[in-house]
């Protein structure tokens, strides 16, 4: 399987190096996250076999495959929900073991799950800062600074369809909820954002909103891993594509320039 693996080619390296303001200096060097020989068993069931995958910073990697191919399992081994049975994870050149999701969060891996993990009854600001609230000197919540932070992140990500960031998340559309979940990840200084089926339940304009957001993340130098079974969306936004079939990585590599709609910068 290793023969299918390709590391960052000169083409991608050049484009990544000319990415806009805010891209980290990790771009152009070794990939941010490398999977080597990852395997996962559930008893006699082999969910994943011998996965070698590189996730470079500043680029959008798409993980595609039919249902049951092992996409979600791969994500869960990567974010500390399950430990891989074999193989190793190499983060920024160092081997790491994630025992809990918090370990993964601590190094800068943020996952936006399909269910978004948002509390419907809380508003956008409260959701974005859940678990990371800012306290004022009196020990009470510093609502003003939290709201300013949330507003700034949303503006940075050009999420402008939400007029009132104090409205309950339950009243937002699917695309807006995705945007809030992604903004939450960005706020925590994530270096790698993993999105599990971000456009699965969205309409046309909402899908466009989310894909826009994904591109903007990559421009900021964040590595994005998108799991999707929607090839149209994948071709619109991905720089690299990895195909999973029955737990094995069938092919991985940069998207051919002719099918890639996203133009290079500069």
């Amino acid at each position: 399987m290793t023969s299918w693996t390709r590391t960052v080619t000169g083409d991608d390296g050049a484009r990544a190096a000319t990415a806009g303001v805010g891209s980290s200096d990790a771009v152009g060097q070794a990939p941010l996250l490398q999977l080597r020989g990852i395997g996962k068993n559930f008893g006699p069931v082999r969910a994943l076999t011998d996965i070698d995958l590189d996730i470079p910073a500043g680029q959008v990697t798409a993980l595609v495959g039919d249902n049951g191919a092992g996409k979600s399992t791969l994500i869960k081994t990567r974010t500390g929900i399950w430990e891989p049975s074999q193989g190793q994870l190499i983060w920024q050149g160092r081997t790491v073991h994630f025992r809990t999701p918090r370990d993964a969060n601590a190094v800068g891996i943020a996952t936006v799950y399909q269910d978004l993990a948002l509390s419907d009854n809380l508003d956008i600001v409260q959701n974005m800062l859940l678990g990371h609230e800012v306290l004022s000197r009196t020990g009470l919540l510093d609502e003003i600074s939290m709201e300013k932070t949330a507003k700034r992140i949303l503006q940075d990500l050009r999420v402008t369809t939400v007029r009132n960031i104090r409205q309950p998340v339950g009243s937002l559309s699917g695309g807006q909820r995705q945007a809030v979940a992604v903004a939450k990840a960005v706020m925590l200084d994530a270096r790698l954002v993993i999105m599990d089926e971000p456009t699965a339940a969205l309409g046309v304009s909402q899908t466009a909103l989310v894909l826009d957001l994904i591109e903007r993340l990559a421009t900021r130098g964040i590595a994005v891993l998108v799991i999707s079974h929607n090839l149209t969306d994948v071709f619109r936004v991905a720089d690299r594509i990895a195909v999973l079939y029955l737990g094995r990585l069938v092919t991985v590599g940069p998207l051919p320039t002719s099918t890639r709609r996203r133009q290079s910068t500069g």
Partner: protein
Amino acid sequence: MASVNPKGSTTTAAPAEEPEVITTPTGSAELLAGSVGEYVRIQGRRIRSGESGALPVVIGLVAIVIFFQAKNSLFLSAGNLVNLMAQSSFIITLGMAEIFVLLLGDIDLAAGFTAACGAVGALWMMALNDPWWAAVLVALAGTALYGAMQGIIVARLRLPSFVVTLAGQLFLSGLLIYLIDQTGSIGVGGVIQLHNNIINNIAGGWLSPTATWIVLLIIVGLAGLAMFYSDYRRRRAGLVAPPLSITLLKIAAVIVAGVVVVLVANTNRGRLITVEGMPWVVLVVLAILFVWTVLLGRTRFGRYIYAIGGNAEAARRAGINIVRTRTLAFMLCGLTAGMTGIIYASYLGSISSNVNGGQNVLKAVAAAVIGGTSLFGADYGSGAGAHRRGSRTSR
């Protein structure tokens, strides 16, 4: 509207996009409105689309008042109204206790008897001539501990709170009889009397009319300042804030409500002697309400309670310690139930083994639910802002 930038380029000067007009009825009308007129229009639209907030409760209350006043013209008399305030005080406090666990999606069916048992403990100590504050502290510590115990069983062992607290209710109803029995000659005939003037005065005593006006001035003054200042800070920070006219209207409404209540309380309601002034119990309940509202609405812990109630999985992934938060919530429920017990003992002058803890709990839960708390955990659909939930039970 989101627009896909056709060039896909990352120019830093993105074209300014039109803000989308919110057509859904949700979203705080205060923050969306730019003026009083717009505020009224937004509220009207919300009510028409079914998001009526507290309006049905208010209309129901008005209907009840009209009905009973028609039946007995003494209903709206000062004496009766003040009596109602004192009578409902302990249900309101018990409702506040229940809110902590209702927000989590749990329930505490034992709270009524927790209150009674705590009160028996306090009354016993006071009958033995211990200082009243020691008796109250011991009672509150005991009920809080019991609440924490229920919380540990629910949160750690993951048993349903309905079952655990129902068992608690049965256990405590027996414990109540046992405790009163154990007091020997103090608790004769299944009733233990209250022998302390200070505690007795909570429900039985009242402030002088002058003191009542002063207290009103202080409360309304502070509330008005707080509202004005918080909106002012928001405007200064460049955030969306309610227009000044709305803020002033809210302050005016608080002043009017306060003045009305004080006028009612200061009217002579005694028959043989002059009885004028606000009963202490109203202030006690208001104080508890204020502290718990701040705790639920303005602290991290309170925020986590709402988060767990809304989506426990999201809270877990955000790193919130679910077990600890739930246990603490049950402990606070027990603590507030203890306070209820003291207020109840003050109102009745005694605690008997006939206390209907089960029925009291149902009334308390009803008070919380009518006030806007959902029985199914924190639920945004009721239309109230998170920080207003705690204050709803006073209806």
